[in-house]
């Protein structure tokens, strides 16, 4: 068919997005390491406002989530939606627009954060001009993605597309609703909501950004790339679809668990706690599906360093999705909230799950995209152990710091007075923060190795041109008409 000789998948966009993702992970992780150092040596802000913790912390989080994470998700969504739909991207120029406009938003948005522009909403700090720009680019992302699915030549919509689709729709809804605000100047606006409502809307956004972007989006990545890497079909396709709907239904309720013991109604807190516990089931369904899929592909571990990252990412995904619901229990949260345990939890997800599955995917994808073997398998193996050691050290040091803090915040003497001051407790944490800095440096060193490895793999190579393969007759949309049958049911040749 002519479609198979003329059409080419738009993989140039994919590789450019991967390059941007690698750029942002280096920048944002370097900022994270610097932040970790500021906890030990606060004077290294050198009295500059733009180097202060309050300004560069959102730069770190936004850089990782939206720079590294979203660029990786756009890249893998564009790559996989073409393959699972058997057509090139819908409106490729719009896809290029998404790619570059998104990077411009991250760059200018990051600078605006350093300049002190902030809405003060966590993970939604960017001010209203950026919010509008994000909404426009995100809708364009949706047009390209869903347009490609609408044009597909294969009837089933593979499960990874459900997760990516959920990411696009829900993040659009959350972003637009949470950022409704009245602008006052070009760099300042005030939220349309006030008081407890503002807090509830913010954490409806904040928790579901974690849910649908850092969990759902990356599950889309797992469901497409894990079977490809392992050469095995997903262990239970039915379980993956059930877990998608259960995940989508239950996640959206859980946000108010960030507001335990606050001014919001207690029933809202309790509901969020219960739904957080329910969430464990669909989360672990995907983990089990991943682990069982990869368990059949053990021979590939001999030659493929990428698969190790995916295996370990599933372990940390299991940890983070267990730990989250547990910390949502009010009697645990009363101690864990406002401590570094939360930071440990976030990083078991961010380093152990998001980064590792993305690194595994990049190690698999880049050589395929440029048609060349990975530059150094040894370097990738070394990276794996650095990533594992860094994550473990980070998580354990923050667990210990967090539990110590929780105990010390709440310790009272015989007169019912707090036993320790805030300053005393923070001073006591410096050893843990030292360990955290070492952990961050180890993880960062691994990431630099990977970037170099992938850069050398891509260097001087052109993107391989791939045409959509034909679709089997029984799955094809608008299959060729069946030959007519005579009255006995015997097919009559055309």
């Amino acid at each position, binding site marked *: 068919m002519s479609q198979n000789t003329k059409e080419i998948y738009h993989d140039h966009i994919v590789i450019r997005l991967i390059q941007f993702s690698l750029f942002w992970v280096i920048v944002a992780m370097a900022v994270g390491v610097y932040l970790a150092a500021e906890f030990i040596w606060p004077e290294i802000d050198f009295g500059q406002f733009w180097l202060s913790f309050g300004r560069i912390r959102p730069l770190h989080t936004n850089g990782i989530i939206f720079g590294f994470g979203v660029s990786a998700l756009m890249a893998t969504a564009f790559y996989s939606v073409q393959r699972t739909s058997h057509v090139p991207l819908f409106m490729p120029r719009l896809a290029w627009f998404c790619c570059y406009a998104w990077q411009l938003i991250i760059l200018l948005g990051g600078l605006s954060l350093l300049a002190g522009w902030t809405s003060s909403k966590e993970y939604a700090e960017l001010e209203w001009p950026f919010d509008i720009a994000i909404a426009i680019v995100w809708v364009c992302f949706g047009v390209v993605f869903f347009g490609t699915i609408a044009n597909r030549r294969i009837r089933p919509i593979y499960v990874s597309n459900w997760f990516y689709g959920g990411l696009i729709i829900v993040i659009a809804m959350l972003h637009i609703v949470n950022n409704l605000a009245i602008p006052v100047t070009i760099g300042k606006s005030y939220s349309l909501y006030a008081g407890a409502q503002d807090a509830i809307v913010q954490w409806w956004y904040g928790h579901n950004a974690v849910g649908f972007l850092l969990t759902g989006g990356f599950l889309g990545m797992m469901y497409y790339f894990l079977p490809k890497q392992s050469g095995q079909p997903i262990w239970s396709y039915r379980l993956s679809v059930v877990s998608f709907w259960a995940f989508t239904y239950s996640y959206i309720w859980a946000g108010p668990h960030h507001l335990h013991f606050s001014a919001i109604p207690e029933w809202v807190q309790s509901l969020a706690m219960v739904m957080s516990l329910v969430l464990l089931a669909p989360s672990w369904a995907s*983990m089990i599906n991943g*682990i*069982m899929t*990869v*368990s059949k592909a*053990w*021979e*590939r*571990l*001999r030659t493929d360093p990428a698969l*190790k990252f995916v*295996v*370990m990412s*599933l*372990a*940390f995904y*299991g*940890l983070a999705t*267990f*730990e989250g619901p*547990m*910390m949502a*229990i009010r*009697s*645990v949260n*009363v*101690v*864990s909230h406002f401590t570094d*345990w939360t930071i440990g939890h976030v990083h078991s997800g961010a380093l152990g799950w998001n980064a590792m599955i993305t690194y595994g995917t990049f190690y698999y994808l880049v050589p395929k995209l440029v048609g060349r073997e990975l530059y150094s398998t040894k370097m990738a193996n070394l990276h794996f152990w650095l990533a594992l050691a860094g994550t*473990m*050290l980070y998580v*354990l*040091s923050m*667990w*210990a710091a967090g*539990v*110590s803090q*929780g*105990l*010390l915040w*709440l*310790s*009272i003497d015989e007169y*019912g007075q*707090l*036993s*320790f001051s805030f300053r*005393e*407790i923070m001073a*006591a*944490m410096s*050893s*843990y923060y030292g*360990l955290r800095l070492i952990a961050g440096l180890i993880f960062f060193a691994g990431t630099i190795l990977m970037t170099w490895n992938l850069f050398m793999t891509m260097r001087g190579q052109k993107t391989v041109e791939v045409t959509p393969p034909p679709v089997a007759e029984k799955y094809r949309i608008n299959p060729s008409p069946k030959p007519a049958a005579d009255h006995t049911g015997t097919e009559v040749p055309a």
Partner: protein
Amino acid sequence: MTQLTLINALLKPHLAFKEIAQVDSNAAKILQKIVPLLLLAPPIFVWLGSGLFGWRMGADEALFLDNTSRVIISFCYFIALSLGFFSTVFIAHWMGVTYGADKPLKVYFALITVVYFPFLIGSIAHIYPNAFFNLLVLLLTLIWCMTLLYKGLPVALEIPPERGMLMSSSLVAWLLVGAVSLLGISVGLWTIGIGPAIAV
């Protein structure tokens, strides 16, 4: 069993794991005898340390608890360790089928005992319950335990190293979940009044 002692298992783990893999050897029997020590010693160290030096969470003053609280905490620690140990043995046995292992339960029992043993050595640090000091010792212990797990599991279960790597990683996931559960349970007990007095 020929020359296997627990110390040999730690110094020459490869040989020890090979011996564990022999179903008809009595390695498992010998290792079973030290399980009570593995499970009882750490809580005893906690009880001793919290009485002698008090919990040092990083602030200047140590937290001293009354003897009843210390006994309850140590007992809860014993229960948690026992649950962790036996559940890991049974889960490893259950997982083994998926990864192509065909060994009786006693082999898993011996394997987990050896993997767990560095923790017993590390738990001596509980006698001086300074949180950061214990964390440092725990980190070293953990590296040792994980090395034994990743290297020993495929040898003891006689499966290819790649399958061993997958199974070890699944067990690490289980152990991480177990560790964080221990934190959650501890905190939950504090909030209902067992353990240090906190203002909740």
